[in-house]
Each structure stands twice: as C-alpha cells, then as structure tokens.
C-alpha cells in the first residue's frame, strides 16, 4: 500500500499507509494527524485541508481544478505548491509523497 509522509508545522512527521483512491485529507483525518480540519468533509469548498506539497512531488500530484484554484486563492498564506489535500487521491505513483501542513487552517 502506498504511504504518505505528513510533516506538521512543528516538524513532527507522520507516515501513513493508505489505499489507492483515499484522499490525502481522509488519510490525515482518519489517522488523527493534527493540522487538517476538513470542515466540509472533502467537497473542495472550505479550504481547511490546505497542505504544501514537497517540490519533488508537485508534478505527480497533478494540477488543481478550477474550483480548487478558486478556494486556494482566498488563502493569504498560499504558496506556489499549495494544494487542498482532499483533492489529491492516493495512487501507486504517489507512494512516498511528502506534504507539509501549515501552522493554521483558515
């Protein structure tokens, strides 16, 4: 099963195994990784599952949709590799992906 490494803002690392098709958001919330709120439950409509994808993985993670783009754009802390973790489904290709979690969710 592919794994994801979540790195909290304070540096704490969590390596989580998941099924193909699980979103990074559901892996984080399902395994009590702090730093992801996911108020809307994965609908791409609250932007409280913001994460920063490690540069090396950006291309494999794909591009944000127009809806995701409009939600990300409201976040003043947005970085060039910001994504909403509910919009990244796990694939075999993403095995080992590393994402940073921001200090705050809006």
């Amino acid at each position: 099963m592919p794994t994801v490494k979540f790195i909290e803002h304070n540096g704490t690392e969590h390596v989580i195994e998941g099924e193909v098709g699980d979103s990074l958001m559901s892996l984080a919330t399902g395994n009590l990784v702090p730093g992801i709120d996911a108020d809307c439950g994965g609908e791409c409509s609250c932007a409280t599952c913001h994460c920063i994808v490690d540069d090396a993985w950006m291309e494999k993670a794909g591009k944000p949709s127009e809806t995701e783009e409009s939600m990300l754009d409201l976040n003043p802390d947005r970085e060039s590799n910001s994504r909403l973790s509910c919009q990244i489904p796990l694939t075999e290709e993403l095995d080992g992906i590393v994402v940073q979690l921001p200090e705050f969710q809006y």
Partner: protein
Amino acid sequence: MSEAVIEKLDLTTADPWSVPLDKINVSDPALFETDTHWGYFERLRKEDPVHYCEESLFGPYWSITKFNDIMQVDKAHHIFSSEDGITLPDRPLDFRTPNFISMDPPKHDVQRKAVTNAVAPLNLAKLEPIIRERAGKILDNLPIGEEFNWVDLVSVELTTQMLATLFDFPFEERRKLTYWSDMATSGELAGGPTPEPVRRAALLECLEVFTGLWNERVNNDPSEDIDLISMMAHNPDTQNMEPMEYLGNLILLIVGGNDTTRNSLSGGVYFLNEFPDEYDKLRANPGLIPKMVPEIIRFQTPLAYMRRTAMEDTVVGGKTIKEGDKVAMWYVSGNRDEEVIDRPNEFIIDRANPRHHLSFGFGIHRCMGNRLAEMQLRIVWEEILSRFETVEVVGEPVRVLSSFVKGYSELPVIVHAKQ
C-alpha cells in the same frame, strides 16, 4: 349569498403538515419571531426539498432545504451569482451598498483578500488576551442572583467591544456599531420593523463617522495600523472604493462580526438550559468547549439563509431553476438534515465531527471570520465556566423579526456563582 372572504393564511398558527405545499413561504419573518419555522422546513425536506414559492414579500423564490443540495448550490458560484444580493429583498436601485459578499469573482476575490488578514489566525492569536480580558471584565460585572437580559449585558456588549477593537473604533461610542448593525438588517423591505428612511439615515451616519476615521488614518504608516479601516485605506485593491462601496463593506463587516456571534453567545446559554445533561457534561469536562462551540453555531445557525440568483437554467434536486430566479439556501434547514447529521435536533456538545455544518456557508463566500467567531465563543465559555456554576434561563427568549438574522433580543437569566 355572501362574497367569499379571502383570509390571509397565518403560517405561524397553521399546521405545517396540512398547509398546501404551494402556500408554504418559509421566508415569512413572523415564522422566525415565533420560532414556528421548524415544521415547515421538516416537511419541505421530506416532501419537496427544492421548493418554489410563488408569492412572498420578496416575490417568487426557490428554497433549497437539504444539506447536500445546499452544498451543491453554494459551491457553484459560476451558476449561482451573488451580484444581485445575498438576501431575498430586492435592493433599492437608489441606495445600493455593494460589498464583496455580494460580488462574484474576480472582484470578490481581490476585495476579500484586502481584509482577510485582519482575521488571519496569526492576528487572532494576538487578539486572544484582549478578548479574554474584556470578556472577564464583562462577566465580573454581572449581578449575581438577580434576573437580567443576557443579550444586552453579555452578548451585545462583548461582540460590540470586539468589533470596536477590530476597527479601532472610539471605544466609548461603540454602541453605535450595534445600532448600525441592527438598522442594516431590520429594514421594512426585509420585513423588519425599521422604516426605510430611518435605516438609510442611520447607514449614512455610519458612513460619515467611518469616513472621518478613514481620513485620519489614510496617511499613517501602514505597517503600524492593523485595524480594518487602515487595511482598506492602504490596500491598492480597496483604497479607491466609492463611498457607497466603503459603506457596503463596513456593513458587511459590522453585521458579519456582530449579529452572528452575538446570537450564538445567547443561543449557547439557551441550548445548555434546554439540554441540562449537556450542561452537566460540560461542567464535568470544560475541555469539551472547543467541540461545543461549532455545535452551538450549527444549532443556532445565526444567519438562516443566503440568497443567490441563477445565471443560467440549471437542475437542483430534480427541479429546473430558471435563469434569473432567486434561490435561498436555508442553512437553518440543512443543519437539521437527518440524512447528513445524526440526531440533528439534539444539542450534543461532543459530536464526532462538529464542524461539518452549514452555518458559515461553503465555497468562495464561506465566512471569513469563522475562526474569530469560534475563538470568541471558546474564550467566553472558558471564562463563564471558571466563574459561574450555572447561567440559568428563567424565561422564554424574545426572538428577532427576521428570516435572515436568526437571533434574540432578550434572554432573561440569573447567574449563580460557583460555591
């Protein structure tokens, strides 16, 4: 023999389950003043979840009543526009106060971003000690063992002080903010008690006072001013706003930061009295406060709905909504949708997923101040629990005549000190 007598159907006393479906008008402000809307929404969710009302004070409109349909509409800002306003009454052409909540992208995005920083989590952390100190002072001054109106002495006072802080508004004159907020939402065009000329005069006074503050601050060093007025005055995206647009954004921030938290502060007290087992649970474990806060916000739903206007023909819940139709997303109903929320009519302070509610809306217009609201409520409840054994509700609340602002003007209580 006699002419037919046409009686106006009084929905507040009718049986929600036997009124003809097409006569149901959930936007009637009296339903909210009398707290009799629940049955109608329950029926609509069961029998006609996307409901067309032909005749109302606000003309014809659609009601979206189920959680997932509301989510669908709220997300689809490219189909459902906010430009014609986010409440059902048509806005008078000669008194328009545009603001970013009633704009679509791209203008919405730049104006919202200009003020978002005021409520960014890092700034909120700086505000926490101020809020705690002010909340403590208000609570310490309450009369112990005698009846008073919680709305006035606590809910209004606290949220007004907070707003004054965010605007850096002259502190002694802070109740003006409350007055302007009330005027903004209680107009007769919205079915409220305030005559339109009185409402306009109050809002123009608001503009005048705030224009004075803008002029005082516009030439200050931007790095030293972190209040909302200075932010707007110094940001290239907002510094050239027309006066009515400035007023529009002020009203948005004043109402957004005032009515909502105010009524959740009152609602929490009321709900804990209605569900005394939950109050016991809370007293035994104040650590539940962060989970209780979003539950209060769900259960209160301080803004009952948001309105959109369809920009094209579209289908929601099997019904075709036509271009130009008004659509009300009834958060107050979706928040009680049993298909999404377990035991929705019970106030449960330790729910598994308490933030999964509609009160802040979803999508690009999602409440900008949601974290501030949660923080304020959390701090107040921490301070209440450390001082009082019980805030006892000793009479029925008086509710506001509005189908938009779902709130209280009176909540009689007696506070009992800790032994």
